[in-house]
């Protein structure tokens, strides 16, 4: 479709993001659950905690176990021998969070309490 072929489009839009030194508190149950989930991958893999748009409140938390990207855009935290990464772009939103783990059938799993959030949704997976 040729509608984008003309002039008048900008270069990619960028927004400025404040980068702060990330501090995250992990409860003992959260540390145990991460270690258990990582298993033997702990030496080569990392946990990335991030925020993306969506959820009821504007942003959703995401936790992924991935091979260490060795990327300077991330801040590295040592959590009981495991490496947790937070991308600089998410640092302002996620610094100060407390990660807990609840071993329950309903609504269990990792829970994040975020002091930066003005609000969070009922299921606790998103914040704004």
């Amino acid at each position: 479709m040729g509608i984008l072929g003309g002039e008048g489009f900008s270069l990619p839009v960028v927004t400025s993001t404040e980068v702060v030194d990330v501090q995250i508190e992990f409860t003992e149950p959260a540390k145990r659950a991460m270690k258990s989930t990582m298993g033997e991958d702990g030496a080569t893999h990392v946990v990335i905690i991030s925020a993306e748009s969506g959820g009821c409140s504007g942003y959703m938390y995401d936790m992924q176990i991935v091979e260490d990207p060795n990327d300077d855009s991330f801040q590295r935290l040592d959590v009981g021998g495991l490496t947790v990464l937070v991308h600089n772009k998410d640092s302002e939103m996620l610094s100060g969070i407390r990660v807990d783990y609840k071993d329950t059938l309903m609504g269990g799993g990792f829970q994040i309490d975020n002091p930066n959030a003005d609000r969070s949704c009922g299921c606790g997976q998103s914040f704004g």
Partner: protein
Amino acid sequence: MPPLDLHPVAEVMPSPCSVSVLKGNTAIEHLDRTLTVKTSEIKIGDRVDGLLCNANGRILDRLMICNLGEDMLLIGNHGVGDDTRENLIRGIPWNEEIIVMNGDAAITHLRLVGGAVNRCLAGLGIDTLEISEERWIEYGSALISHTDYSELSVVEILVPTAELVEFTALLHENGAISPDRNRCESLRIELGILDYRELNSAFLPFELGLGHMVSLNKGCYPGQEIHARMDSRGKASRGIVRLRMHSDVAVGKHKVPGIGSITVTASAKAFEGSVALAVVPLPAISLEELKFEGGLIAAMQSL
């Protein structure tokens, strides 16, 4: 209510808008996470209209989306493009490469309304039977679709701004005229076309009759909890109506004895007086007329 006063052929109304382009393999998924409607199944050439809302469920922008293949074209409200783009950029996940571009100056949105729009478009070689509400068709570099309102179908045209003069001249050659600003506004009000005056954070989608732009089964998006609660607990407390009066009414909040506060979002001179759009308390919607403080009487009509 008097019949709609239409030009015998067509009137071309410029519709001020913002234009954004999303590039990237996951642009569709990103929109799906962010908007009130499901975009995950949008095919090339498809049109989907959705809302960007805040966590309180209030409207931040209304987006007319076109899937252009590698790019997603977003036509939004006039004046809020920068906020919408920032909103979209801030939520891009670390592992997705999505580029957002500003095209506010690149594309112009026109609406074509009239008694013989088909004849006007046929003169350009466009088969109006091919124009639908769910798809964009190409005409040169322009894209054409239509939107059905309660009174009439309105043709939506997106044209590169560089080609606007040439394109408008073609429409004029085929019988269309370009009305003045007041006529554009009165037509917009008569047809119930909502724009940035209504589609903003003062209102919730259900208050403006936009329930069709809210998907209650697609999963979470900003505002979803509020929308779901409104749906399950009995909808909105206000609704939008058209007012018709013998004299002007100012845009803004007004007190109506016995009703409470109403918000007039737009007003324009029309045949034998003026027309306006207003958001009124729900119990008042079924009334035939409103009497403003000061005595002005307005006939009321639902959109």
